[in-house]
């Protein structure tokens, strides 16, 4: 079972939900921090680092002695990562999506793929929780290959919680592909609802079963509730707007450890997601 925690809007509480669910689970579980531009789950689950792996993607390298400047490579590349106009091609590795097409269309076998480092995947262990997190190198713009490297390291014989990046673009889509169920975390504000609507449209497009968690539930109004009711979207949990939760978070603490009265709340979410056959269909990677 792979449970993804996502949201349209940033800062709604994805990581809070992910790490507290993992802690209350009570058996071996994995968390994948797929927010590779700003991974933060480790702040709440400080564990021993057991592994650091360097992740690379393939980018073209030109053998100038073979190239006759025909330009087939540049004509093929949809991302303008390789350019040729009767000269030896120019390569822009930061734009390359590593499809390998330029090397395939080159009639003179002048192009080979070389590795370009994009970041690292770190594995940490703490109290039955394995945290696998990606860290994109500074200056690298291409998150999806690193996210795939993170999720590829998940064991299939244990449940996993994916802490998704915010938004609805490629990094989120990459994270959600392969999830069995998606929890969308939102807040009861105009911004929260606006971005929730985008996120709902995304998970429906992906055909994934999903439900909503409303964080800081009594801080705003009932617009998110009304929307979910009208759209027939299940509200799985409402987390109260409790200052003690914010204080616990700000210290890097886990709510289920520091505020035991909230354990039942998170356990109920567990029962509705990871522990229950809520997932309408099983999507295997």
């Amino acid at each position: 079972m792979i449970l993804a925690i996502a949201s349209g809007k940033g800062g709604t509480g994805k990581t809070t939900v992910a790490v507290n669910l993992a802690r209350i689970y009570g058996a071996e579980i994995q968390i994948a921090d797929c927010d590779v531009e700003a991974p933060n789950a480790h702040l709440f689950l400080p564990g021993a680092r057991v592994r650091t792996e360097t992740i690379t993607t393939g980018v073209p390298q030109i053998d100038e002695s073979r190239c006759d400047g025909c330009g087939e490579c540049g004509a093929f590349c949809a991302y303008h990562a390789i350019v040729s106009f009767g000269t030896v091609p120019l390569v822009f590795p930061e734009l390359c999506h590593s499809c390998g097409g330029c090397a395939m269309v080159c009639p003179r076998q002048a192009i080979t793929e070389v590795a370009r480092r994009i970041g690292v995947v770190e594995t940490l262990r703490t109290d039955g929780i394995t945290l696998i997190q990606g860290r994109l190198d500074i200056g690298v713009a291409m998150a999806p290959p690193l996210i795939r490297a993170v999720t590829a390291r998940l064991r299939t014989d244990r449940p996993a919680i994916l802490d998704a990046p915010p938004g609805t673009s490629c990094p989120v889509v990459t994270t959600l592909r392969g999830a069995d169920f998606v929890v969308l975390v939102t807040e009861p504000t105009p911004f929260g609802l606006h971005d929730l609507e985008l996120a709902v449209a995304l998970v429906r497009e992906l055909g994934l079963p999903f439900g909503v968690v409303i964080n800081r539930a009594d801080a705003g109004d009932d617009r998110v509730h009304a929307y979910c009711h009208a759209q027939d979207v299940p509200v799985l949990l409402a987390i109260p707007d409790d200052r003690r939760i914010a204080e616990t978070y700000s210290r890097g603490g886990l709510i289920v450890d520091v505020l035991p009265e909230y354990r039942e709340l998170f356990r109920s979410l567990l029962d509705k997601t990871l522990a229950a056959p809520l997932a309408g269909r099983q999507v295997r990677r």
Partner: protein
Amino acid sequence: MKIAFTTTGTTLDAPLDSRFGRAAKFIVYDLDANEFTVIDNEQNLSAAQGAGIQAAQTVARLGIQALVTGHCGPKAFRVLKAAGIKVYHTDASTVAEALAKYCAQELAEAAAADVQGHWA
């Protein structure tokens, strides 16, 4: 000798577009024949990435020797340089004004890109 100007219009009176990669059009002026042609760059306006690179390829294929525009980023500049095209930056308001400045040798050839890239 042919020079390309970035523009939003189709005549010499049209505004000079300060952008290169996402300029709406290029006016290619032939200094020998004193005539010009208009090249469409619309396909690049909505490009997700690499608009400057594509625009540089487009003007390189037109056989120009110089480009006069408002600003030019690092990737486009690299392609233009590889193609042997000289780049001139100007704040002229119209293509005609930029052309006059070029002909009067009031424009200095750019040695590098004058704005940052949008990626990495």
